[in-house]
């Protein structure tokens, strides 16, 4: 490969890295927007610390677990060392053709922390900060890279006779986060006041502009998430991925709009926002294998699914303030399945590989996250107490308000 092509490929991968980085801001905004202002500092704090912890723990161990090297091909687990160590020729086209060793690491590191960020929204407004941070550290440091290794690190899902296919991580990233979100929600129970005397009481998020900003930043980042997963700047493939990703996101919006209008006769912005994300998660597993009509259908169905799932989870009294389970778990599964149904790879054998992958990843993610949460619950506890929850985590955990001027408008004006 020419030095030029290597440089271009690497440039694109670095830009994709930056775009995936922005998704953390997207998650922070979305989750803050869809929860109450008394818990906003807490959400922002978690979403500021998680990427930091994620990058560091991924540098220390995660990257080595996820890409342990060729000697672990077909395995369930492997470890290639500790910390980062530039291999010989790690900065040349020999390393991979698409990127340097450093780019490889940093692109993957930005992905890693998203798994924990997905959980953050679902368990918001009631989980103890310290408990959540401990969970995230373990989950991002070990569980996520183990699953990632199964496919992307050359593990057993990659070496199935018909290889499990998950282009950019509908399962490997989104479902892994989604299962943990489900485990957390089950073990935590609903927020006080969400289900009263058998009835659902909506708890509206405090800022629709923040939520919208979050979703658009996530879509923005998704060009890097999916586009970067091509692992090179190949013009045809990356641009196709851009098209399928955009069409699926757009179709998700329309699907959720139509479905929620049909069911509730309302134009619910939060559903449209979730619909966009649903479409994006849905296309993620097969973004490079789909035609435009496939992408349209996958997105449309994802948009419908997410609305139905939000309503269903509320029926089941599973309280997920931001719809993380519906978006990332349900549509992550849908997207993974869709690879066997639509596009170039569609076939029964592919579908069964997809089912195997979904099953194995689901079992491992759910059991491991449930166990970690469970042990935390039995030891240091998982949930803040009632008084703290009522008053808001911002005061209880941080001793500060997100909008002090507004909470205390008078005080501010008077004193100063």
């Amino acid at each position: 490969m020419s030095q030029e092509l290597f440089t271009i490929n690497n440039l694109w991968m670095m830009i994709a890295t930056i775009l995936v980085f922005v998704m953390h801001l997207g998650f922070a905004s979305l989750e803050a927007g869809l929860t109450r202002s008394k818990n906003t500092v807490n959400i922002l704090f978690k979403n500021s610390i998680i990427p930091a912890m994620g990058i560091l723990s991924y540098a220390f161990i995660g990257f080595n677990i996820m890409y342990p090297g060729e000697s672990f091909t077909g395995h369930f687990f492997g470890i290639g060392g500790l910390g980062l160590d530039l291999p010989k020729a790690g900065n040349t086209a020999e390393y991979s053709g698409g990127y340097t060793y450093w780019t490889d690491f940093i692109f993957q590191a930005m992905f890693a922390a998203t798994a924990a960020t997905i959980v953050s929204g679902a368990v918001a407004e009631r989980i103890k900060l310290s408990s959540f941070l401990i969970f995230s550290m373990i989950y991002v440091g070990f569980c996520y890279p183990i699953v990632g290794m199964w496919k992307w690190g050359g593990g057993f899902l990659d070496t199935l006779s018909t290889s499990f296919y998950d282009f950019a991580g509908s399962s490997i990233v989104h479902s892994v986060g989604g299962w943990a979100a489900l485990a957390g929600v089950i073990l935590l129970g609903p927020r006080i006041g969400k289900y009263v005397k058998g009835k659902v009481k909506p708890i509206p998020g405090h800022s629709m502009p923040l939520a919208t900003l979050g979703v658009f930043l996530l879509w923005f980042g998704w060009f890097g998430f999916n586009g970067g997963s091509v692992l090179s700047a190949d013009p045809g493939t990356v641009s196709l991925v851009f098209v399928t990703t955009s069409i699926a996101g757009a179709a998700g919006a329309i699907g959720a709009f139509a479905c929620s209008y049909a069911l509730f006769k309302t134009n619910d912005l939060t559903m449209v926002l979730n619909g966009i994300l649903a479409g994006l998660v849905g296309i993620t597993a097969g973004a490079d294998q789909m035609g435009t009509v496939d992408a349209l259908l996958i997105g449309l169905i994802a948009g419908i699914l997410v609305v139905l799932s939000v309503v269903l989870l509320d029926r089941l009294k599973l309280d997920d303030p931001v719809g993380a389970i519906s978006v990332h778990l349900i549509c992550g599964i849908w997207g993974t399945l869709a690879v066997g149904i639509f596009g170039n790879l569609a076939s029964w054998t592919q579908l069964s590989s997809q089912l195997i992958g979904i099953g194995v990843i689901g079992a491992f993610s759910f059991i491991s996250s449930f166990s970690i949460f469970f042990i935390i619950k039995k030891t240091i506890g998982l949930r803040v107490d009632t008084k703290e929850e009522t008053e808001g985590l911002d005061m209880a955990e941080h001793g500060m308000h997100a909008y002090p001027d507004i909470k205390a408008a008078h005080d501010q004006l008077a004193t100063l």
Partner: protein
Amino acid sequence: MKKIEAIIRTSKFEEVKEALSQMRIRFLSYSEVKGIGLEKAQGQVYRGTAYDADYIQRTKIEIIVAEEQVESTMDCIMKAAYTGEIGDGKVFVIPIENLHRIRNKAEGAAAL
């Protein structure tokens, strides 16, 4: 002196203010209160669940007036705040025992 308090529709406040100033009442204080009464708040839907806020945003007006203006002020408010539909609100009178203007220590009716 009396204090007249009125709890009215927020959307009628501007008209009331205008009407009062027409009758040369140019002093008043007002604030936001939440009201519970016969009128029901509009339904809202959030993520598939319908609900109502169980209160309605209202404006509370407080005016201190001399004895002889009580009647006319109340009438004025009642006219301007009227729509005839449920939720128009209430006006009532509270006795005031003493009043001072801070700026010049004027007392009683002189302070109005």
